[in-house]
């Protein structure tokens, strides 16, 4: 029994933190709030590829590092801490989809993807006011030369550098990802922008023709692959938010020790210190849930999806509370453009409402608990 990061994972965390501190500046995000959106430069991307980060959770035979979701979460958490665009998380998730799908794409796409020479993007969400695979309505209908896709995806991250799009669709064979080259005829990309300067887009598909072999995982494994990928992406989103929350708490704690009002450091007032103590509790619970969810995914446990939802719901609430407290407890200065505090607030708010907001995930947990109960009743 050992429920903490391994030594290797701790070393990786330090390495990532150092690397990002040297190679990525939060000020990029501030500038990007004006225009254009924040992107990871190609050379940085390539470097992360050579460090083995992009294929962290992808098998070694196709260029990945062969590690697990828990290790990937270390990268996501540090991306949150360092305000690196979350492209890394989304590509890590996309790579696992192709890896698990296990078809010809594995060998054709993954080596270049893991090396950082090539990017893949997942297009899942639609304009229906909710999230995730269950809400996918985009249909691939049978056509003369394969399948024909029509419909709209939104909130698609980082289309800029991507040449391949994994589109969640209801095909004649199964619900699953269909691969579509981003330059295929009928694909239109319209930029959107996130509150925290990250790049997102609307992608529309107007009679886009793909072969039936484009279904990732084939009819049998397509849906499972899509759902597993969404879970992995979601848990990386939770890790990102944990990094945001913990950093906000650290910044605010440091400020509370040093800022003096009424002749005392403000951290000696219980209105401040108790709020920070409560946030520490939330951060520690978030971390515990994150580990639980990653482990459940890595061990393919039956309750993995419920734990993923638990981790995401709790981390979202924690990040919003922590960053709002950070703005508030920094006082006027916390509300200025030049301090990084609002960048964390923006990322927390944006992340909390991406990949399912807390109520979405609580409802998912409620359904899972309901199924458990029904199962038990039936077994009696």
């Amino acid at each position: 029994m050992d429920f903490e990061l391994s030594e290797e994972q701790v070393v990786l965390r330090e390495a990532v933190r150092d690397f990002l501190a040297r190679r990525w500046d939060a000020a990029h995000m501030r500038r990007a709030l004006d225009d254009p959106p924040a992107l990871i430069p190609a050379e940085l991307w390539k470097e992360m590829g050579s460090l083995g980060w992009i294929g962290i959770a992808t098998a070694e035979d196709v260029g990945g590092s062969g590690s697990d979701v828990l290790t990937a979460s270390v990268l996501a958490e540090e991306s949150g801490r360092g305000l690196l665009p979350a492209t890394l998380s989304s590509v890590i998730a996309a790579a696992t989809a192709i890896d698990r799908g296990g078809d010809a794409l594995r060998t054709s796409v993954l080596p270049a993807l893991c090396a950082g020479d090539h990017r893949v993007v997942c297009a899942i969400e639609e304009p229906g006011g909710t999230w995730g695979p269950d809400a996918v309505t985009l249909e691939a209908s049978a056509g003369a030369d394969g399948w024909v896709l029509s419909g709209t995806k939104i909130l698609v991250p980082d289309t800029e550098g991507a040449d391949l799009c994994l589109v969640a669709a209801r095909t004649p064979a199964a619900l699953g990802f269909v691969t579509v080259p981003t330059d295929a005829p009928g694909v239109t990309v319209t930029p959107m922008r996130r509150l925290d300067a990250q790049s997102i887009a609307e992608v529309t598909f107007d009679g886009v023709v793909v072969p039936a072999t484009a279904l990732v995982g084939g009819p049998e494994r397509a849906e499972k692959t899509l759902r597993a990928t969404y879970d992995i992406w979601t848990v990386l989103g939770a890790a990102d938010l944990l990094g945001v929350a913990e950093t906000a708490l650290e910044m605010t704690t440091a400020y509370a020790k040093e800022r003096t009002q009424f002749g005392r450091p403000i951290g000696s007032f219980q209105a401040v210190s108790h709020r920070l103590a409560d946030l520490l509790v939330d951060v520690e619970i978030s971390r515990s849930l994150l580990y639980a969810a990653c482990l459940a995914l890595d061990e393919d446990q039956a309750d993995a999806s419920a734990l993923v939802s638990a981790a995401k719901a709790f981390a979202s609430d924690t990040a919003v509370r922590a960053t709002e407290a950070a703005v508030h407890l920094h006082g006027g200065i916390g509300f200025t453009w030049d301090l990084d505090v609002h960048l964390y607030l923006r990322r927390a708010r944006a992340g909390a409402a991406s990949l399912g907001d807390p109520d979405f995930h609580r409802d998912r947990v409620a359904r899972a608990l309901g199924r458990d109960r029904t199962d038990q009743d039936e077994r009696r």
Partner: protein
Amino acid sequence: MDLHFSPEDEEFRARLHAWLEEHAGRLEDAAGVMKGAGAANIMDAIQMARDWQRTLWEAGYVGLSWPEKYGGQDASLTEQVIVTEELAAVSTPPLINTIGLTILGPTLIRHGTEQQRERFLPKILTAEELWCQGFSEPEAGSDLAALTTRAEIDGDDFVVNGQKVWTSLAPIADWCFLLVRSDPDAPKREGISYLLCDMKTPGLTVTPLRNAAGGIHFSEMFFRDVRIPRANLVGDLHGGWQIARTTLEHERSGLSSVLALEQNLARLRRTASNIALGDGRAIDDQAISRELAQLWIEVEGLRHLGYRTLSDQIAGRPPGATASVGKLFAAQLRQRITHLALKIEGPLAPVTKKSPHVVERGRWNAAYFDALGHSIGGGTSEIQRNTIAERVLGLPRSVQD
């Protein structure tokens, strides 16, 4: 107990209502200006805003509580309330010289010399002179009395050195009222003076500050050997703290903030009825519908609290707990409305205003940042809880100094 207005008051309301309908066009221009749209350049916009305040004043709807001799209306409290309500009902923009009207004006009426009143009050009303406030400093936020901007007397002048921050309107203001430390050796609340400073005085420079929402609302002001004539001292030398405190405590019934909250909430209910969330419309989500109901309850609570404050004022009773309570409650309510708004927007909450699919052009994200700023500016919620604990409940001070 009754909430009815007298026939005279209702007549006053009808006249105002008619006037506003007549001036509806001007009104929309002014509203556009305050939102930074519709005017060719910023100086035009400011002029339009000044003109709008002047027009409103000429019609008799600015400075209602002020004495007639300074251009005010000597109006009754109920008339003041009616003006507030009607202006809010047609969503008029805030008057450009609000700081002068609500803070400096009442201060001068109470503590100014006759000469100061005659000199400054009329031009506040007409917006001929715009005012800004120089109270906060980088090291003196919640602990306002810790301010360090120095004023030394040199002949007939104060010579001021130091820095102020979080000043609204500084780049366009004509005058500034500020607090300075005039006696560094006295206990901290006893060595402060209250001065009026012409913004064109040499040595005074203004640097705009960008806020977290990306807008420019505040500035820093730097004073380097700025000379202010002694005639511009308000009240007693070293007596500025008491003056500033009574102004800050000069709480109003808060009814105008209620009207803004009510309009926001009504708009949010419409948003919730129109937007998809989960399996249906947002308003079909039981938790959201209940939270909307709870917010309506709280807005009604705040409104009727305001009526109680107003009743005390009308009856000349000492203000009870209600005034300080309303301010704290309103700040929280404002935040909770925007929190719920972001929840209602669901997946679209993180989308900014230039994107396709954005909800109502990003109004709720803007409102969210605004509300966050509000609980800091003008006394944090923590300071307000201290005040209630000490002054209303009579608990011992938690903050010793």
